[in-house]
């Protein structure tokens, strides 16, 4: 384990793990020890991580729901306006306002709005838009799991974090202020 430099302006301690269950255990223990887990970076979605980090429920579902309702309204308005009011179209003798015929387009637009807006909001919220300068840890998209702990004013924080990381088999511990 490399020695850790104590610098006054350093704000985060990061532990690098090779195994999924190690990082899960480390996160749990860190929170139990009263440390502030800033975020955990993993190559894939780790089952149980949300609970271990004590994350609040994502509000993305509400965004997706509202976007879906918008898509629904847009789909219905588009079709009813164009083929009932603005330019009534006779399709196979069916009434102008043939609701069943409007369902496929309405459905597609609901899904499209909901999906695209949810993904867009996810990327914006995570600051992962195109040309984003957000820093990526080496190998974290490949085979490493990184747990980042926020340092508070308490002097013992860093040692505590390093201890937790070491106990759960971290292969490396670094500090920095560029993680956000």
């Amino acid at each position, binding site marked *: 384990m490399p020695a850790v430099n104590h610098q006054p302006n350093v704000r985060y301690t990061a532990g690098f793990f090779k195994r999924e269950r190690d990082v899960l255990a480390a996160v749990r223990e860190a929170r139990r020890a009263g440390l502030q887990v800033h975020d955990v970076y993993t190559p894939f979605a780790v*089952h*149980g991580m*949300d*609970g*271990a980090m*004590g994350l609040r*429920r994502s509000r993305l579902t509400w965004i997706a729901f509202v976007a879906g309702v918008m898509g629904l309204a847009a789909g219905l308005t588009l079709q009813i306006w164009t083929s009932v009011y603005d330019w009534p179209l006779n399709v196979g003798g*069916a009434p102008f306002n043939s609701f069943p*015929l409007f*369902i496929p387009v309405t459905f597609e637009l609901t899904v499209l709005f909901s999906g695209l807006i949810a993904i867009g909001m996810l990327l914006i919220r995570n600051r992962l838009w195109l040309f984003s300068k957000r820093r990526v840890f080496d190998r974290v998209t490949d085979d490493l799991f990184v747990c980042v702990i926020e340092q508070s004013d308490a002097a013992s924080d860093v040692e505590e974090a390093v201890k937790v990381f070491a106990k759960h088999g971290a292969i490396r511990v670094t500090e920095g202020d560029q993680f956000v």
Partner: protein
Amino acid sequence: MPFKNFVSDREHKALMGLLALGALGFAAGLISHSARLWPSFLLNAFYFLTLALGAMVFVSIHHVSNAGWSTVIRRIPEAMMGYLPLGAAMMLFTFFGRQAIYRWTHEDVVHSDGVLSVKAWLLNTPSFYARMAIILAIWIAFMVLLRRESLWQDEDGRLEHTMSSKKISAVFLVVFALTFPLASFDWLMSVEPEFYSTIYAFYCFSGLFVSGIAAIAILVIWLRRRGVLPEVGEEHLHNLGKLIFGFTTFWAYIWISQYLLIYYANLPEETIYYIRQMATPGWYGLFLLNLFLNWIIPFVILLPRSAKRREGWLMTACLIVLVGHWLDLYLMILPQVGAAAMISPYDLTLGAGFTALFLYAFLRGLKQAALLPVHDPYLQESLALHAHEEAEAGVY
């Protein structure tokens, strides 16, 4: 008292009561109104057969997809599969009432009807019931093979049984995909022999699968409340809830696909199917209720994550889906034989009797083996499904 681990004395008596009620309804119908009784018999026989088949498809998909999470609940669909022979006998029993159900069994009607005489090579009594017997026998054979591997593994704990279950399931799914369309075309679609819809089999399958999973979920929750299946956690319920949520929507998707094309094309031999379902205010009411029970209500109930994880909400949604699927079959059969919209006492008493038969077969299956497949290599994975994190986090 044969099933004392699972049901109390009183419940056992209630079950016998339901069975007696069914027998009584059947006898009364036979005497007074057999034209109404037999379509209702077909409805209930097919309905409960689909629950057993849904469970079998569930088990097969579990094996083929290497699913780990569902191992703790696998014995429940396996026990439900046990109804298959009884259900098959009930389907074959419609032979005695075929003239009240299928118009094409009347020779004079076939002779005077050009369309029916062309279809007579397929729709004639001997070949119809021969096909039915063959298809049912194939399904039962696969059921026995699958169940046997599972029970053998309990005894000797060998890995080979998991492997062969996988192979049997894969073959069954293909065979089922080929036989079930034929079965649904034969048994249900030919109730109105001039009507045809190529998506009909898919439609039947969507109903079969969602109601099968709903029945599994209800029985799992029931056993969990009894305290005999404490291994099932919120995560397992959540997975079942997700499947039910998804497949009610799948049902709605197939429903609209069938309705929309028939509406659009406006061909008389196709539209008659829906015209009969919407002809009177009574039928139209049931037609709309069907959409609410099978999709809109369960969709809204199961939309939030928390509802899929809570016994009460999940149970409510599943019961609604089960009633909805019954109503769906009611709408597929009864309008086509010219019945009135009003649900008759025969439908309900036969439904009660078949419920009792189904539960007997199910309880017998449960008793046959341990509730957990103790030597299944996936059991640990299934038991550990997020078992630790929720309590600790305390946020959900």
